[in-house]
């Protein structure tokens, strides 16, 4: 898994032209996966928040 050199990224692609071509291809799809993933993450966050709100916080009764 570990790679021999660091910092990496500089030599990931053979040439600037290839990097550009891959970027254009990647941008045909992106950011669909990121949108779904981020949405799932914040949905889980909201579910967790609401869970604590309804299951722990409100049953513990009024204060103020």
């Amino acid at each position, binding site marked *: *898994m*570990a790679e*021999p050199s660091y910092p*990496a990224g500089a030599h990931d692609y053979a040439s600037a032209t290839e990097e550009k071509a891959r*970027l254009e291809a990647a941008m045909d799809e*992106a*950011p669909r996966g990121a949108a779904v993933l981020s949405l799932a993450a914040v949905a889980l*966050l909201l579910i967790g928040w609401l869970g604590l709100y309804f299951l722990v*916080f409100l049953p513990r009764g009024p204060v103020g």
Partner: protein
Amino acid sequence: MATVARRGAAPALQPAVGAVAGLQTRRLVIAHIWVALAAFAFACLLGVWQMWARSPLAAPYHSAANYFRSVTLHGVSMAFVLTTFFIMGFGYYVAETALRRPLPGLRLAWAAFWMGIAGTLLAALSVISGNASVLFTFYPPLTATPWFYIGLVLVVVASWIWCLIMIFSMRWWRADNPGKPVPLAMFATVANAVMWLWTTVGVAAELLFQVIPAAFGWNAMIDVGLSRTLFSWTLHAIVYFWLFPSYIAFYTMFPRAAGGRLYSDTMGRLAFVLFIIYSLPVGMHHLFMDPEHSNGFKFLQMFLTLLVSIPTLLTIFTITASAEIAGRMRGGKGLFGWIGALPWGRPMVLATGLAFLMLFWGGGGGLINMSYGMNAMIHNTSWVTAHFHLIFGGTVVIMYQAICYSIWPSLTGRNFASLRPLLVQLWLWFIGMMVMTLPWHWLGLQGQWRRSAAFDYSNPIIHGWGPWVLVSLAGGIVLAVSALLFVYNLALLHRRGGGAAPATIEYARAVHPPQRVPSSLNGFGLWNIIVALLMLLAYGWPIAQFFFDPPPQALVHRLG
């Protein structure tokens, strides 16, 4: 200032490109970061002992005096020394490598460094002597020896000098490069400097006008509500001061390490500007359970706190999208195939992924904390300790570690011979942090309170907490091992490595590198005005009330 002015007056003499990360600046950066690392490793070991002391197991040297001395040292080392020195060192590094020209004010920077060292020693000796066990959040009317506070003030003044060097570096670069966008890494660093100047006003006022006069015995009485309000001014934005380098790494280092591009440079600038605006007028969420403020202002600052989640949530999307671009460029297919295609064997990539996971838990806990009345459920319980250890110890520190791993080759001139010890260290840090903090959430919900030197496990309510406390202690031990391995990895590179490394690093490029940006996103003038107005709205009356309708003051209790 003379050095700064002279360098700034003749920028044309400096080469615009090249001479990057010059030897003098390298020494400056290494000195700062090693001070940070020493404080960090020491504080990790103290943290383990504190958890041992609170567990059902008998801990050596366990007494209330030692416990609170240790908690104070742990907090001061982590929150003031590690952060301030790391941020200063990294800022100098960014100023030189992102702007690609020598750092101005090198001698002034060294003067600030030694001032920070003097302040750190003064504060540390005060705590070790046992005369300053007031924790890093002070709690007047308890007062420590005045030298404790004076030491911390010296550290803050040193950081102010750093702020000025950062601000003028950017200004002089902009003067020499009219119309060009300031590189994002430097824009963010200066955003942090600007925010930090605002942030420190609260604590500086508290220390200079209230606490230090009380500690010297000049004042017998202290307005406790006012001191808490002034400290709350600082208390939230200081966390964003710590967090900024992590976000700088997300935006300007991670996309490159992943082999891709930053999704949007503009969103980066916007996120950093939003941090300046919204991390300041929100500190009163630390005072929800306090009697000295009305519900109206608590509600207002709760609302503003909700808004400070926006830049973080925007960042999550922008950085995930950047990761997707990199993964797809590396051949990842389908909706999620890009995740597996990312180069997880690179420390910056792995650390960013783990940082996001810890941010999820820490941010989720934080959402509960800030939810106004809901704060009563967990205020001053282990839940809060879990929250800020995940944010600070988690997201912030793991990115500091990844930043060190990214810049160390350029500072030492050597590449790491193997990345495996680095990856092991990062994984251990993540595992240790999760194992330590997940039980704390659970204990906090059951009412386990903070800042207790010991628990009476014979009490039937407390008895059931024992096993969970032991699990979190195990997590703490893993963290300490990881901290030592981290320091060892960096120390080793000073002696030997795996081949020569270039003296600089490349920052990530955006999908659309900015050609021109609006002046509002190339400087901070407008945002300073907005911060001033928001602070007036959020803190104007809450502070003024102590002068219009002064509450009874409390007698100063001296510990030192």
